[in-house]
């Protein structure tokens, strides 16, 4: 693969190399076992470290451990949406077929992460804030993100012609991308109940290293999990199209 890549000029043409689903399948097959193994390793190590070897918070007690699932899934909820939007833009601008498949495949995973973030946040909110749900800016905008994912999935499947559904979904994804910065900065713009970011502060993060490291490893595990599932879903998507084509062809021969 690498020797082949060296002969190709970089830039947009190298992007188009992956426009061939067959080539993508070969690449995905080569990468998938490694990514899957890395996912199991980091996710396992991160969760075990976080659950059994981190100190309880002096205020929050053991409930702080919900954070190790909540924060990575919230990050991934936004990351997955950005992926969907970027892939949609590539699909619309260059009519890139694999980007189209990627956008379609990433959306349900992102919806899953968003749901996980909302659910774990709610579980944490009950003992800490005394309520399952508050109409706080960040909670509301994440809920809107969840609705955007649902809308994206619904419109992609609403047409007889699957290609039309995906192109409509791509436009919707680009319209909805306005929400991502709103989520990111909602806690800074509005003084609401949800605490501001404590990891990505300039200078020293406002979180102790005994908690920061397991959090970062779990976050890496979540990201690798996303990549693994995305590759699997894209593969099955491409194969499903191939099976459909083969079936059509065999019907035509009969």
């Amino acid at each position, binding site marked *: 693969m690498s020797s082949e890549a060296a002969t190709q000029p970089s830039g947009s043409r190298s992007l188009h190399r992956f426009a061939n689903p067959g080539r993508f399948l070969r690449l995905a097959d080569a990468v998938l076992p490694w990514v899957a193994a890395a996912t199991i390793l980091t996710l396992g190590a991160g969760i075990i470290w976080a659950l059994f070897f981190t100190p309880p918070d002096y205020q929050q007690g053991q409930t702080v451990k919900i954070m190790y699932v909540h924060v990575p899934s919230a990050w991934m909820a936004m990351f997955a949406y950005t992926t969907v939007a970027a892939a949609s833009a590539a699909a619309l601008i260059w009519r890139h077929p694999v980007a189209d498949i990627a956008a379609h495949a990433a959306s349900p995973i992102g919806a899953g992460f968003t749901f996980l973030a909302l659910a774990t946040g709610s579980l944490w909110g009950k003992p800490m804030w005394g309520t399952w749900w508050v109409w706080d800016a960040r909670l509301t905008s994440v809920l809107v993100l969840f609705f955007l994912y649902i*809308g994206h999935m*619904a419109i992609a499947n*609403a*047409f007889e012609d699957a290609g*039309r559904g995906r192109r*409509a979904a791509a436009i919707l994804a680009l*319209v*909805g991308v306005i929400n991502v910065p709103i989520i990111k900065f909602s806690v800074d713009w509005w003084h609401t109940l949800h605490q501001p970011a404590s990891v990505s502060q300039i200078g020293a993060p406002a979180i102790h290293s005994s908690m920061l490291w397991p959090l970062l490893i779990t976050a890496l595990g979540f990201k690798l999990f996303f990549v693994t599932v995305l590759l699997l879903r894209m593969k099955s998507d491409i194969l499903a199209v191939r099976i459909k084509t083969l079936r059509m062809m065999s019907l035509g021969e009969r």
Partner: protein
Amino acid sequence: MSMETKARRETEPNAAAAHPVEADLSTPPGLFTGFARVVARDLRLALRQRGDAGLVVMFFVLTATLFPFGLGPEPNLLARIAPGVVWVTALLAVLLSLERLFLADYEDGSLELLTLSPIPLSVIVLAKVTAHWLTTGLPLLIAAPVIGIMYAMPGEAYLPLMAAMALGTPTLSLIGAVGAALTLGARRGGVLIPLLVLPLYIPVLIFGISAVDAVLAGVPVQPHLMLLGAMLLAAVPLAPWAAAAALRQAVE
């Protein structure tokens, strides 16, 4: 639908007869003339069908009268929820009117002709949205004080409510046009539009209500109105562009 097609059949020849010069196809109309013609055509269609705009207002008033039945007629409570009720019901009324924004044109084929016209499709979309706002947003704006009176809304709340609605309802029409264009030809298109559009309506709703609440709380109302204005200014170029892209896919 049959009423609508009948009204269209009556309208289109009249339009050609009233403006014989417009039939000259050798020189394409300028941007503004084209815009004005599409607005005029849609308004004429809306007028011929009568009732459509009236129905939206009726829906608005009827839905708003349901809340006192559900919550009890306590004046203090009603005065407090009045801005929220006005905004939420106006939003639902706009939502109800969205499906027919492009559907009739799509079904009778005029949409294909519109996409072929020398005027950019986004300008045509903007014109259709303008006509949509004039036939739904504006009547809702006029009907809003009636609901304010029924809910015993405090006197100083009327001006900010009207200003917020004047800035907010065009944004609703603009965002709604994207949803309406995306769902053209979809199965269950009418059910899909709320699913796509409502999440995007939430910011308008939030700042529309907080503008009124700001006046009632005695804090400056300007920031909320400016944010509503900013959303409108962002939606004017972006929404027709996205809707035009979606329409092109629909007629492809």
